[in-house]
């Protein structure tokens, strides 16, 4: 299956990539999608995530063709 992974705002700047295509034969959770897309770096606890533009947690299992988006927490006022 193919998953599209997108990184937004400061995550895109820190990781120096905005989009990655992942191919996998195994079922993946969102946390595993992050790890594979980020060279085995574990998912930080504070990162927010969405699958197909719906907010999810890291244990959500993704499907073929899904778009997984990661975005940073923002609190500045």
């Amino acid at each position: 299956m193919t998953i599209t992974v997108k990184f937004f705002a400061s995550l895109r700047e820190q990781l120096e990539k905005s989009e990655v295509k992942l191919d996998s034969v195994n079922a993946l959770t969102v946390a595993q999608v992050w790890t594979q897309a980020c060279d085995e770096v574990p998912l930080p606890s504070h990162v927010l995530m969405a699958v197909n533009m719906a907010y999810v947690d890291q244990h959500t299992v993704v499907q073929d063709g899904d778009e997984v988006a990661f975005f940073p927490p923002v609190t500045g006022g």
Partner: protein
Amino acid sequence: MFNPNTLSPAKTLTLPIDAATTLATARVLIIGVGGLGCAVAHDLALAGVGCLVLVDFDTVDLSNLQRQLLHDVSQIGQPKVLSAQRALQQLAPTVNILPIAQHLTEKELLEEVAAADVVLDCSDNFATRFMLNAACVQQRTPLISGASIEFGGQVASFALNTADAPCYHCLYPDEAEEAATTCTQNGVLAPLVGIIGSLQATEAVKVLLNIGTPLYARLLLFDALTARWRVVNLVKDPACPVCQHTGTNSPF
């Protein structure tokens, strides 16, 4: 000669008279009078909202002035709420500004939230955001949350006056606090706070007038560097420690 009637909300907004009256009799609570809070208070005062309660314990610093548009050099060292009140009264003399230049206790916050028709979170830290969200959940007051840092901003509205609405804590778990960055530490693109604050003010007017489709259960993300907007749909977290007992199956 200056005539405040020429600035009446009905004329500037061309709203139906009942909508203008609704705004003129509304009471709005704004937590934080920094970049977002200045933009929100400015826009809501000019939109004709009758009463703005401003809460911020901080004082004006020179470093604030590039983005906190109600403050100026003459107000450095003054409480931000008094500086904002001074500026707002020049812009909109008929608006009732209630400044509170201190931290509110939980009890005081609950009272202010209960008295408000809508609450705007313009604060700069998760501790305040979580405390304010809990108060809004408890008092069932709609909450409009805005945040911005560096080149990114977020806005979401929470229909906490209805059952089954997600709350801010459904979106941000407690761990978010560990990653907190502030405008003071990381900086923020100055016009970005105006964009996000004006969006919050727009949401507040919609909620007060019960028009359109507010950003309820939606998080709007803006990336200034790419000039792209994105919406993430939110759902109520059934395990949320703050709002899990407020659903339709609970003794709301």
